């Protein structure tokens, strides 16, 4: 497996947004696999079963505004479950359709959050980000 291929996990309560993200990700050429979840709890369960391996890099794209468990709550649960020394295999990005400054400020406060991406996700917005990692 090539090191620059990545496993993607998309978490978004909108089916359409999951679909868009999957398509866009598949078109980047960096996609080893992509899974999408409409509920954050299901994604956490899936992530808990993933192997810890430097070759197995996982990029998580999680929407901020979701019912039941929102994006921030997901990050908090993630940080509680995954110990710090194991987080280097994960690249977590928050997604949002809101242009809300307080959300961006809050996003920066989480140690494990890499960046904040605006919706809609496009091929160019995700590629711009992928070249940096």
């Amino acid at each position, binding site marked *: 497996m090539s090191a620059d291929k990545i496993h993607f996990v998309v978490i978004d*309560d909108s*089916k359409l947004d999951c679909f*868009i993200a999957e*398509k866009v990700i598949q078109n980047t050429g960096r996609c080893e696999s992509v899974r999408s979840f409409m509920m954050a709890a299901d994604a956490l369960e899936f992530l808990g079963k993933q192997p810890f391996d430097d070759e197995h890099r996982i990029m998580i794209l999680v929407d901020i505004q979701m019912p*039941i468990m929102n994006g921030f709550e997901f990050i908090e649960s993630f940080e509680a479950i995954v110990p710090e020394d194991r987080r280097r295999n994960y690249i977590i990005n928050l997604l949002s*359709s*809101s242009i809300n400054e307080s959300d961006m400020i809050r996003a920066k406060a989480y140690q494990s959050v890499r960046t904040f991406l605006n*919706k*809609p996700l496009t091929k160019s917005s995700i590629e711009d980000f992928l070249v940096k990692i």
Partner: protein
Amino acid sequence: MEKFKVLYIDDEINNLVGLKASFRLDYDILIAESADGGKEILEHNPDIRIILCDQRMPGKTGIEFFEEIASKHPNPIRMLITGYTDIESVINAINKGHVFRYISKPWESNEIKFAIEEGNKFYLTQSMLTQKNEQLQKAYEELDKFAYSVTHDMRGPIVSVLGAIELTKSAETLKDVQEIMDMMEKSVQRVEEFMRNMHYYYSLKRGELEIGEINFEELILELKDLFTPNANQSNVLFDIILDQKEFLRSDIVPIKIILNNLISNAIKYQRMDNDTKFVRLEISITKGNATFTVSDNGIGIDDAYLNDIFKMFFRATSENTGSGFGLYNVKDAVRKLNGDIQVKSKRGEGSEFKVTIPSK
């Protein structure tokens, strides 16, 4: 006009009796012979608007008394009755804001009456200001919440559609395009629903009630027209049962908001794997009340969320496309009609909403 309460504290009983006698027709005069007695009366009469207090009393001066009550009873307008010899301390008290004005001894009826009237005007202005401030504060908070939600609930689906349009440009087959279109349709419906609810919300906020006799036959026909196609499409049996023993006077608009929301929720939140989906509305009008019961055998609501479902923008499920606005509007509409709403629900079994509206 209703008489408002004026408290008068003076250690000279003759003054108390004299003032009470002069103004008994104009005001509701409460009297106390000491500062402590005055405090006691204040405790039991939070609606006292004006306090008149003699400056020279044994044990405590009027100014000291006013300072003592200032934090606990900030609303009543305070006036000091005093002789000229105390003028220094009076000026001080007025400047510190403890006292609205002073009345010199011996007082004249006209002077007292004028002072009380002025004080009352000030009191009313102030309490109106406080009330308006509270309303404004609440409106601001709602606006904040609203603005935040607008970016998600309105911009979100539109942004999704934009993303989808981008995708269709590179779609390879017609089938791919159709699949994307179906999802786009749901997004657009979500914005549409959000806006409709917003319209409901503001018509409830602004509108005065228009009370009339409710025509239930007409209402039922309208509801059937509105929901039967939707229910058929989702394989839900939709049924309305009417048991009208008497007339009901109320406003039809909030009733429609309540029923539209409850029924569309019941149709929307069904269990996919259920072969006998139903939504039932029972209306009974008896003993001066109308009871609307909307029941279904859908996904139900977790106990943990039952207390939150009426809050603005709360969503208890990621299934389907809720706006988080509907039940908030329902509760608001029920409140507007002085009604009551009860909910019984069990996750995986179904829900029952019971709304009781009194006849006006």
